[in-house]
């Protein structure tokens, strides 16, 4: 298979041995690869096969957790934006193409072109991370974190939830802010804020009352952060709750960001754990790829560097591959 591995030093044919050269030389050792590929590429493929199992464990856990859970949030319940996810998919596919083109340019001895494609890959990878960071910010702003104490997500509108809302409203800083809000004249607030203030006063009464029902707490949870209703092409609220403001911008937490009241997303905590674990590990892989590309940009990227680009490309395609499965599983299921 590998013709060059058989050609021998000193022009001997393939069957000659070291002792034919004359006694004082000793045997000439030949390198014969077990597989017809370079060592670097072999190691990269071995590494990738361990990576397959790493992500298979993560994705497998996600799938069994998701389908084993009694209730799992819909993507719009957790403020996921499908178009943004699709855009990120597109960005990664483009970056896969550009790294392939970088390899082809390097093989064709067009180092300048290879550098251009490599730089473009680096930029696309950075764009992916930027969009991912924006998405994380959207989750954080809704109190969706993988873990307490930052996470403000409750599983169901039960008494624990009610007491958590009461505790938050009873914090000294919040009491001061609420007092300030109550004393603000209505003409200094937007109509939306005036209506939200009235709703907030109702919520305060409801959680303070000793005879609250499960349904009251669901109403409280809906006021704090309604579960956005699904609509094709975006999460513009279809159920039209309250005064014509649909969607998730009408929650008290959105109108008064300082409130940061506990919110209810059934199944939201397990969702957050899996989402941040999966996308976080994927993002770490993207970062490693970006570091590799940055290092490679320091090389000439001619035919001699094609092997390096190929290995970096193999890794990058694998990162793309993981996202190909992550996107539908997280955003569209």
């Amino acid at each position, binding site marked *: 298979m590998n013709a060059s591995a058989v050609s021998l030093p000193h022009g001997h044919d393939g069957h000659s041995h070291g002792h034919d050269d004359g006694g004082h030389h000793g045997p000439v050792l030949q*390198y014969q690869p077990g597989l017809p590929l370079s060592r670097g590429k072999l190691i990269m493929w071995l590494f990738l096969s*361990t990576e397959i199992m790493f992500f298979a464990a993560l994705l497998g856990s996600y799938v069994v957790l998701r389908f084993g859970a009694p209730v799992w949030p819909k993507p719009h319940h957790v403020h996921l934006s499908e178009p943004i996810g699709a855009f990120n998919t597109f960005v990664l596919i483009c970056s896969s193409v550009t790294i392939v083109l970088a390899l082809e340019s390097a093989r064709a001895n067009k180092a300048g072109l290879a550098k251009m494609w490599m730089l473009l890959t680096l930029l696309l990878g950075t764009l992916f991370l930027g969009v991912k960071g924006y998405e994380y910010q959207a989750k954080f702003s809704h109190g969706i974190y993988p873990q307490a104490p930052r996470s403000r997500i409750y599983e169901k509108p039960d008494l624990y939830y009610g007491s958590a809302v009461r505790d938050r409203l009873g914090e000294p800083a919040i009491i001061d802010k609420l007092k300030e809000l109550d004393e603000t004249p209505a003409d200094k607030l937007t109509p939306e804020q005036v209506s939200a203030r009235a709703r907030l006063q109702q919520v305060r009464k409801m959680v303070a009352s000793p005879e609250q029902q499960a349904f009251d707490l669901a109403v409280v949870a809906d006021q704090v952060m*309604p*579960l956005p209703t699904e609509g094709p092409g975006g999460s513009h609220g279809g159920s039209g709750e309250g005064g014509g403001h649909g969607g998730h911008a009408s929650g008290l937490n959105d109108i008064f960001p300082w409130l940061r009241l506990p919110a209810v997303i059934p199944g*939201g905590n397990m969702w957050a754990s899996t989402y941040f674990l999966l996308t976080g590990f994927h993002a770490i892989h993207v970062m490693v790829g970006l570091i590799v590309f940055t290092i490679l940009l320091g090389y000439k990227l001619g035919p001699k560097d094609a092997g390096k680009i*190929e290995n970096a490309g193999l890794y990058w395609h694998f990162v793309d591959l993981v996202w190909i499965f992550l996107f*539908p599983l997280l955003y*569209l299921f």
Partner: protein
Amino acid sequence: MSDHDIHSAHAHGPITRAGDIPVHGEHDEHDHNSHDHGHGGIGKYLLVFLALCGLTTMSFLTYSSVWPWRDQPHVGWAFMMAVSCTKAMLVVLFFMHVFWEANWKYVLTIPAAMMAIFLALMLVPDVGMRTRMVSQERALRMARTSDVLLMEQAAEAKVLAEAAH
């Protein structure tokens, strides 16, 4: 057997520089090979790219109002997984050049793929079925579909919204 041998061998060919064999040693032949295999045509990569974009749009269709099986999520899931597997195959075969590789590709990919599948299956009894049998204490605090319905009813009731107006 000394440095001399290694260096002279290096001068004649890449044999003693193991790591570089296919890249350096085959470099002259490689260019011919790549043309023989039709491997590396930019047009081919662009075709794969367009196919990937088309497939992404297809899986995105399940999210749009055009998708006819909105009330049967399983149809959409199966469709999306089929689309994802197709995309994965395209990336592995063409972008990762596996289509043009020798038979060693099976040695690495098939065991890894099988172990990945077994790994996921082994999680089912422990993790996937963990909510089948739970203590009453835990069942009380677990989110249920009824909680989502409760939230939806609360949203429709407009209790506070009317009070606010």
